[in-house]
């Protein structure tokens, strides 16, 4: 089937989005860091959470780029 490869590519992209959502909600979301044991800790936690979330999205984009390269090599160059 001509579109099977593209269906798989879209499906993998969907799985990756769901995985990132899972990490953001269940791993990064509840994270709380206590350094000074005062209100500053909330700010530090927020900065760390935001940095981790942005980092995770960057990892997602890099993985998508890798996936794209692999798929292109398989689909285009072999033909």
């Amino acid at each position, binding site marked *: 089937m001509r579109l099977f490869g593209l269906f798989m590519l879209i499906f993998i992209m*969907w799985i990756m*989005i769901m995985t990132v*959502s899972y990490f953001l*909600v269940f791993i990064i979301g509840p994270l709380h860091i206590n350094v000074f044991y005062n209100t500053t800790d909330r700010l530090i936690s927020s900065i760390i959470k935001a940095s981790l*979330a942005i980092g995770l999205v960057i990892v997602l984009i890099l993985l998508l780029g890798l996936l794209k390269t692999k798929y292109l090599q398989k689909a*285009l160059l072999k*033909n």
Partner: protein
Amino acid sequence: MIYPLDITIYGIIVSAISFLIVFFITPPFIEYLTKKGRVVLDYHKPGKPKVPRPAGPVLLMGIVISEIILYFLISDVKIISVLLTTIIAFIIGYIDDLKTMPGWFKPAALILAAVPIIVLGTHGNYLNLIFDSAFIPILYILLILSIIPIVGNTINSIDVFNGVATGFIIITMIPLLVGVILFSNTDVFLIGLPLLFGCIAMYQYHKYPSKIFLGDSGTLLLGSMYAALSIVGNSEIIGVIALLPAVMNSFLFLSSVKKIVEHRQVKTRPVTICDDFRLMASKDNSAPATLVRLILARGPLSEQEIITRIFILAAFSSLLAIISIAIQYAFMMGKLSL
């Protein structure tokens, strides 16, 4: 509070107005554009017929009139913010229709289209992440400023064949409207109906063989309104999933040319036209990767066959979006937990 009967009546009114305006104004507008000589060549057909462009003004007319009527019925400020975003995106596209602007113009200018949503405060502070939502008031603003240009340009870049942009929006609006009614409110659902029915009416003229092309004004209007609806309707991730084939197309193109450029500025074309007017993937390694090039990787296809395949992919991603909605709804109702 709006009662279910009122929602049905308002929904029918705004849908009918948008559909009828676009359906009946487009034929005289096609004549007007042809008389004025505002036509472009359709390179994918024998004889390269001249097709009038742009259809954006008619689409805008249908949407604006029905949204104004809706505002008189439900008086929700979200209507104003979505409408202003749509109008700004249309103006940016129309400038590009009149005069070819550099590649950076559309993405950069579309940031302006996101401003009404932020200024009028019609966005939420929580990002729905399928399993739960995250409170990100500052990051969310940055997200809005990037979502509108990305989605606007994404729909713009997928509109390479007859009827693709309108057909694609019709298919992907279904999960978005389902998401909006479950995770936001009925007002946003009603705001989305003129876009869906305007597209259904326009598709009658835009489908293969096209009697009119949307132009940048039409595609940016569609993409930006879709993005605005997903933001004010708390369904951003659902929208992204439904648009995955188009997102993939933009991502493939950007990561292969490594900079923001107009498609017409790319020297090596991703597809070539055979003698029988079927299209074939370029064998040149330096040609940009696009969704169409991948569809054609296993051999040449006619324009109609490519369009059908793009719609099949849109239907597949919309199905994944509906599965995501079901998962999100189950988590929201406490029927699923991890």
